[in-house]
């Protein structure tokens, strides 16, 4: 049986991978996918705590899984809006490389 710390370690590693992807990659779509990885790592933590700290009646704590449900729904909406913004950006600039997007640079 895997213990709580095993789950937390695995989800922390997934979060670290997502963070590294956001810093390293220059393609804005891949950066966006790495953001999704970080959200999913947080979801894994929530589900692990819901299983390992049961509610008063002994069943898994469903408040944690509610939060996962809401996170997944908001993430789906966020992906739709974010990809629309990326498409609009590509139409305006013909690029999605973060190195080429320097309008705000002083």
């Amino acid at each position: 049986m895997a213990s709580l710390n095993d789950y937390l370690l695995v989800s922390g590693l997934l979060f670290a991978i997502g963070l590294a992807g956001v810093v390293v990659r220059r393609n804005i779509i891949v950066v966006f996918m790495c953001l999704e990885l970080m959200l999913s790592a947080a979801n894994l933590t929530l589900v692990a705590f819901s299983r390992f700290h049961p509610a008063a009646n002994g069943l898994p704590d469903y408040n944690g899984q509610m939060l996962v449900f809401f996170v997944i729904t908001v993430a789906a909406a966020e992906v739709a809006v974010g990809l629309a913004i990326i498409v609009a950006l590509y139409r305006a600039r013909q690029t999605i490389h973060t190195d080429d997007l320097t309008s705000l640079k002083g």
Partner: protein
Amino acid sequence: MPSYLFWLFSVIMLVGGAAVIAFRNPVASALSVVACFVGLAGLFIGLSAFFVGVIQILVYTGAVMVLFLFIIMLLDLKDEEKTAKPLGPIAAGIGLVAAFTMQLIGVLSHSPNTTAPALDAQTFTAAATGFPVSSKIAANLLNGKLPDVHLIGHTLFTQYNLPLQILGVLLLVATIGVVVLSKRQAD
């Protein structure tokens, strides 16, 4: 869940995650995210969160990643150039991951470790007294099954009714926002 299944799904998830960064082709990256999410759904189901595991497959790997693939193919992106790869961001990324992992291991070595509490027929029978005798939840619990979807629905519509409706408004706003954003601007 047996230990070997936990490590199998964890390795699928972490290798998929690492492949997202390693591949240069965005399509390969998107397919690696799919592999990563399949492993994650396996972990969810191993944690007895069946509904969340199925939603992870349906919503994330089914809908979200297909949307990503659509956009990648719509924009017709070329692979990143092989040469100009600045060392600064790579060093920063590796340093961040190393610092984060060391901190994680430090915290986890001091935090109390627990094993999963039993989810057996005895727990279910005790929990069934909290629900009306004629309800489906109680019947399933007395049969020794975890009515995961029923319990989530029960929690969602009794304790989280207002957030659920706000979420509906959010989805409507997102839909309208996407239509407005993707409409070609009049020149």
